[in-house]
């Protein structure tokens, strides 16, 4: 089962909140990369089919990475850089 792993240790880390859980992230990362590392395969649900909505392009084109960031819904997670204290909410809860 594919897992996303850092290929080297980070000099600095910061803490964000994902679906209620405190998680570690790196400066420069996006919300999308953090979610992928945590094991989220999809971040939300398609409003049309109810099926899983997942990132495909990681560059702001596919709109598959939408989630709520700091209270704003419909944010493209791949364009949102994490900062200390960023609060992320998805429609898909992943067990910690």
């Amino acid at each position, binding site marked *: 089962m594919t897992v996303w792993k850092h290929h080297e240790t980070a000099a600095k880390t910061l803490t964000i909140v994902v679906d209620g859980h405190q998680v570690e992230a790196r400066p420069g990362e996006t919300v999308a990369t953090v979610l992928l590392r945590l094991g989220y395969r999809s971040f939300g649900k398609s409003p049309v*089919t109810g099926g*899983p909505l997942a990132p*495909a392009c*990681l560059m702001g*084109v596919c*709109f598959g990475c939408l989630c709520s960031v700091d*209270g*704003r819904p419909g944010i493209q997670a*791949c364009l949102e850089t994490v*900062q200390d204290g960023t609060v992320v909410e998805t429609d898909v809860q992943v067990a910690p």
Partner: protein
Amino acid sequence: MTVENPQDVIVVGAGPAGLAAAQSMAETGLSVRLLDEQAWAGGQIWRNAAVMTNLQGPMAKSYDGAVDAMAVLSKPNIEYAASATVLDASLAHLSDTSEKPQARLTWLSGARENRGIRETNARALVIATGAMERPVLFPGATLPGVMGVGAVQSILKQSGMVPTDGGVVLAGQGPLLLLTLEQILDHGGTVDAVLDLGAQGALAGAAPGVLRALISDPGLIAKGASLLWRARRSGVAWYRNIRALRAMGDECIREVAFETEGKTVLLPCTLLAVHDGVIPNTQLTRLLNLDHVWHEAQQAFAPHCASSGQTSASSVWVAGDGAGIAGADVARLRGSLAGLDVARALGSLDNSGFQTLATPLKRQIAQRDPARAFLDKLYAPLPVTAYAGADVQDETLVCRCEAVTLAQVHSAVGDGATGPNRVKTFTRCGMGACQGRMCGNALTRIVAEATGSAPQDAGALRIRPPLKPTLISDYLDILPSEETTP
């Protein structure tokens, strides 16, 4: 909404082309407003350059020139805004073009310190919004875990992560696929298999161009050859002559199935990275109703432009892969050239100055043409329904946002939809969140084929503002966290 002071030029996109254009214009004294929707400059190839150029790793080479290019961000007459999302753009058509603003951009500043909608006017507009992955259609292509190889590259560059622990399969063709394979392996990731979707005999078809390509750009060809060798040597299972590709799973991809050499192969797969080349991102150029031309070899529309980037609108230039796929080196050259042409048009560079500076750029661009033509032939885009035959039309999505299948698109054509916009009206294809970005190219090709018309005549989806979905609260200038910000 904040109306900014007018600028000489607005540049949309701070990748290699946009940075180069900004530099050459700023050097002639023009004021430049440089916008990029990402939180950092560099576009895709120079993603996260501030971190990547400090590394000695195998990827450092692709960042050659990034540091120098980004030095332009601190030039006094370049005002750079990151997290700037263009929402709308319009052009005036004034007869006196020398001083009055010709282009107006409405954009959202998403920077946390000063979020809000802005309006900027300028005498000229340079669009350098680059490229995107070509959509590849097959059953299950929209399952979670199916991404473009560019996405895997972005993840590696953005956060230093590689996919590992099995289940990683790459499928497609092209230098970027091979590069991604190399980068995954170099950084300790795993790849189980490569599904080579390239046409059999592609090399033979491209062979006549090889010699000229080698002479014009030996580095490019050598890079490709070494990548191919590295892939074979790495022990990754390599499959060719693939038919009937399918991604299988419920909540996410679990297996990839295909037929080859007369047998069915089923591979465990939880990450399928797909690639069939890149195509120009034409959202903004379409929004502006510029003329576009269908490029047969690249099977994609690009804005019609002169050699130095001026489009069918006299105040708009395009540069970089958004003007036609040619790679990062050419993007920089074209960016510089477009910047010089803008400067000449706006009167901050005289004709002889332009000729002196532009001539070597044009020569360097032309030198790379044979190599590009060779690559275009070698990796000719797959037919749009190569892996979406009649038997799987019902299961293959063209529009992922609105879940419109290939069967539904054909049905709409059968009912009289003569172009992409009529298909959109009949099926909602292109009406979803991505606003036709992911389905547009495929839709044009499918409709052209189905109606027996040329893609140039079939046309493309009409693009309307806002260019990206926007919160009403942003339009109303309401800041939710205003009261609680210390």
